[in-house]
């Protein structure tokens, strides 16, 4: 996904001389090398200095530029949090903060590199918009949208590498709207980000059992598509939320809140990371399983 991001950003920068990227000693490979060699003035590496990464991006935006700030998600959002709040959100500047490798993708690097609370934290900020594409194709759409929008700041949560294409046949991507990857009538799985691949596996198994399944990419976490979620709650007997995020303040807790607000009568199950720092190592799947997120466990609960 990071290569897709860099390819898309390179194309946007070629079309628009106001597109900048400020990175903190981490650079997406591939096309980003082309970006930095062809547009060296618009590729700024601040080094291991995330606070100035955000402040510099804010200064660029104050002068009419369209900057992206890019590093590993924990360092792009948590370390410079007050700069994001004051410089970007308070001033409402069109800066995209890219959180790369969010969730537990950095599965052997330990808790310092796990991003479990980013959606809640970013969503709590006034003016902030939050996007989390589920595959490389959605990453293209989201990056393109970020490069062209003037609403205000965006937190763009992306994966790292090797994510499968899941949305080739899906309906068009639209900012702020749920996107159905498939439509059914009994069970609706709401998810976003890299873990959508697991949700596809679960949906396939349910479909093989003759269950009618909707699968939805909730790629825009803020503003959340309340109308779309309300419709999903009303049109399915069973709604399932799967997210690679803490139980507080992410999609699951918001869907529960909407369900209460609209007096939904469907069954609602949520599957999230645990509210815990774990000290496990292995593959991303291993860590997700340690958090309780595995196809087997989720399918067993869905029944």
């Amino acid at each position, binding site marked *: 996904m990071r290569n897709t991001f860099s390819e898309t950003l390179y194309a946007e920068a070629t079309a628009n*001389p106001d597109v*900048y990227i400020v990175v903190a000693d981490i650079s997406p490979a591939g096309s980003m090398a082309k970006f930095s060699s062809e547009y060296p*003035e*618009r590729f*700024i590496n*601040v*080094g291991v*200095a995330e*606070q*100035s990464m*955000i*402040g*510099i*991006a*804010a*200064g*660029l*935006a*104050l*002068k*009419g*530029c369209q*900057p992206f700030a890019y590093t590993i998600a924990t360092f792009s959002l948590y370390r410079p949090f*007050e*700069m994001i709040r*004051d*410089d970007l959100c*308070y*001033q409402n500047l069109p800066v995209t903060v890219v959180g790369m490798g969010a969730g537990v993708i950095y599965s052997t690097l330990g808790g310092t590199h796990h991003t479990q609370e980013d959606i809640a934290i970013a969503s709590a900020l006034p003016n902030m918009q939050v996007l989390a594409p589920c595959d490389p194709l959605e990453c293209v759409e989201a990056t393109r949208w970020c490069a062209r929008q003037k609403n205000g700041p965006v937190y763009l949560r992306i994966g790292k590498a090797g994510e499968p294409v899941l949305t080739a046949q899906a309906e068009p991507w639209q900012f702020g709207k749920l996107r159905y990857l498939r439509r059914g009538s009994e069970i609706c799985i709401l998810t976003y980000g890299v873990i959508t691949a697991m949700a596809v596996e679960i949906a396939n198994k349910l479909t093989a059992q003759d269950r009618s399944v909707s699968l939805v990419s909730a790629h825009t976490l803020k503003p959340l598509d309340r109308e779309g979620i309300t419709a999903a709650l009303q049109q399915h007997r069973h709604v399932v939320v799967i997210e690679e995020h803490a139980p507080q303040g992410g999609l699951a807790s918001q869907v529960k809140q909407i369900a209460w607000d609209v007096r939904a009568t469907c069954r609602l199950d949520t599957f999230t990371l645990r509210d815990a720092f774990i000290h496990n190592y292995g593959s991303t799947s291993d860590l997700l399983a340690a958090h309780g997120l595995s196809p087997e466990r989720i399918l067993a609960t869905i029944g």
Partner: protein
Amino acid sequence: MTQASFDAKAARTRCQRYRRRILDISQRVSALHIGGAFSCTEIVDVIYNELMRKPGLSSPDTFLMSKGHGCMIQYVVLEELGVLSRADLDAYCTPHGRLGVHPDYGNPGIEASTGSLGHGLSMVVGMALAERGKRRDGMIYTVLSDGETQEGSTWEAVLMASSLKLTNVVAFIDNNDFQSLGRTSETHPSLYPLGAKFEAFGWETAEIDGHDPAAIYRAVSSRKGDRPLMVVARTTKGKGVSYMENAPIWHYRSPSQDEYAQALRELETQA
């Protein structure tokens, strides 16, 4: 303007007028950051009235008040320039006004929201990069507090400005030697010598009397210009009013009626 034509007397007259206006506003509110505004009065005056081209909304140059709590002086200068109105300043910190204790982006003449220390210089670096990228010759001026140099984020920006060779950045440190809990030189003696630290980080530096308008102007106009410039300006917190000078209590306070009258008398004698 050449050094020879710099009118220091006119600058002093303006600064006296600015201080009097700030004192007037102080009588409308229970507290304001008067000490830190008086310590950088001459610096902000020279930036706007002598260094920036066409000061006001159409200036190609930018001023960002990194020490946001000092913005009373910025407000009164912008009032004289016609960017802010008298009604704006009279409504300072009131429900029907738009000016608060810290500068807010979106208000006329305010280029960035500050107030939390350690944010300004990074935004200055970004602005300077944008000017360079857009092939414009805009200069970016800023004023930092000395306490602000304790923020790690300030040093991140210091490192970047010189590494990027941003020759269009001119920064001042309002080195009044005071922060909330005491003299900066006593709480953080290792901060000094301050100028040498910026020099070591690749900046051109100058150290001057921050209440001498001609020296402020000279420090900028005589720079080599091949690197960003940091002017360490020795200043006095509460400058111009005897009982406020170097008295930490005047960091954030309004004078009583008697104190106000005394302050006006003292300013008159300095004319």
